[in-house]
């Protein structure tokens, strides 16, 4: 191997290491809300980065790294889990409460998490991007290859549904304690 090849390799490795360190937490969280389970999420992050390594040269601008990685992860998920797409409604809530260390355990947050799990993926996904990472509407639209208005409608519906669930919850509570 020539010195130049070795230097290029070292540059690639350090660039890669920075990406992994900076973005693996975000990708794991996103994967979790896509796939619904810890093991599948970790696998997805692993596969995303393996693919990213192979195509690292195609990432020209470090500023778009997060969107680039997120898109890879979405595709990996679609490819791998298309058929056995996680049905949140199939999960009994016991398996959620069995992971107390994973989450903030306040009851209102638990209620919200269960509501989120009941939300169809097309509503939940843009919401994660917007709420957790501050993506703008047009950025999400670009990533999902959807018209901006479609994404806006989904986000609007997602919040409406969540509000409805939480309000029902509130009413049930008030009724119970009456």
């Amino acid at each position, binding site marked *: 191997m020539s010195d130049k090849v070795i230097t290029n390799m070292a540059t690639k490795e350090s660039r*890669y*290491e920075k990406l*992994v*360190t900076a973005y*693996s*937490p975000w990708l*794991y*969280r996103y994967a*979790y*809300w896509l796939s619904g389970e*810890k*093991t599948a999420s*970790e*696998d997805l*992050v*692993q596969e995303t*980065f*393996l693919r990213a*390594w192979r195509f690292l040269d195609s990432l020209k601008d470090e500023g778009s790294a997060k969107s680039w990685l997120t898109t890879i992860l979405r595709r990996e998920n679609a490819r791998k889990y298309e058929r056995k797409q996680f049905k949140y409604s199939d999960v009994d809530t016991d398996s959620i409460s069995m992971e107390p*260390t*994973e*989450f*903030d355990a*306040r009851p*209102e*947050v638990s209620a*919200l*998490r269960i509501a*989120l799990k009941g939300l169809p993926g097309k509503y939940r996904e843009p*919401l*994660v991007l*917007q*709420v*957790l990472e*501050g993506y*703008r*509407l047009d950025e999400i639209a670009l990533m999902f290859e959807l018209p901006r208005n479609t994404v*806006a*409608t989904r*986000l*609007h519906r997602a*919040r*409406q549904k*969540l*509000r409805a669930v*939480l309000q029902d919850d509130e009413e049930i509570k008030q009724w119970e304690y009456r």
Partner: protein
Amino acid sequence: MNCLEFRILKLAEPYRASEEAVLHASECPGCSSFKQEIHELDDSLRTAFSVKVPEGLAAKVLLNQSLKDNPRRPTRRYWLSLAASFLVAITMMPFLPMQSLDAEIITHLDHEVHQVHGKSGDIGSGEVRNVLLAVSGETNGSLGTVTYASKCLMNGQLVAHFVVENGGETYTLMLIPEKIDSPLPFQSERWQGLVIPHSVGSLAIIATRQAESSLDFLRLAEQYSQSINHSTI
């Protein structure tokens, strides 16, 4: 801007507001409190979305990548197909390289899981020493609680198989005579683990995938590799 327009915008992008929207909220108490409510919803959402990321995830990703980049030795299937093509498959069989080590370990654990499951209580250092001798290993006594120890035959070689407890988790340790060049992380449906080179040959540390996903196998492997040495007898 009317109330409906304002609320539709708020629900789609709570933290972006046009001048018009700001003006509307300042003049309309109903929409102002609606805005407040949606911001509170988003605060709760942020908390709800923030699941805990497994510790050491980045390190695991990097390790995995470096291993993928260094091609491992050819698989048994490769040798089998090669042998078959020379019509010597049957006579060659005993001399073929083993299956990759991680696959052997997984097969062995799946096979023995019923035997090992549910044991509790320390089995005593005599038994541990006895089993270690089988792979020319000895311990300085710092293995902690050992609930299972067995000499096992894994693909034709004698290995020491232990189940240990550490910090509330249960791990399987295996001392294997076969040497490897670099750490090898692996995963199956049921297991997750790491094999590292060790003076005895190699040392595998394995946990179930239900175990805390933030396990730092590198640190654990290092710890256990110091508890077990090559026998000086």
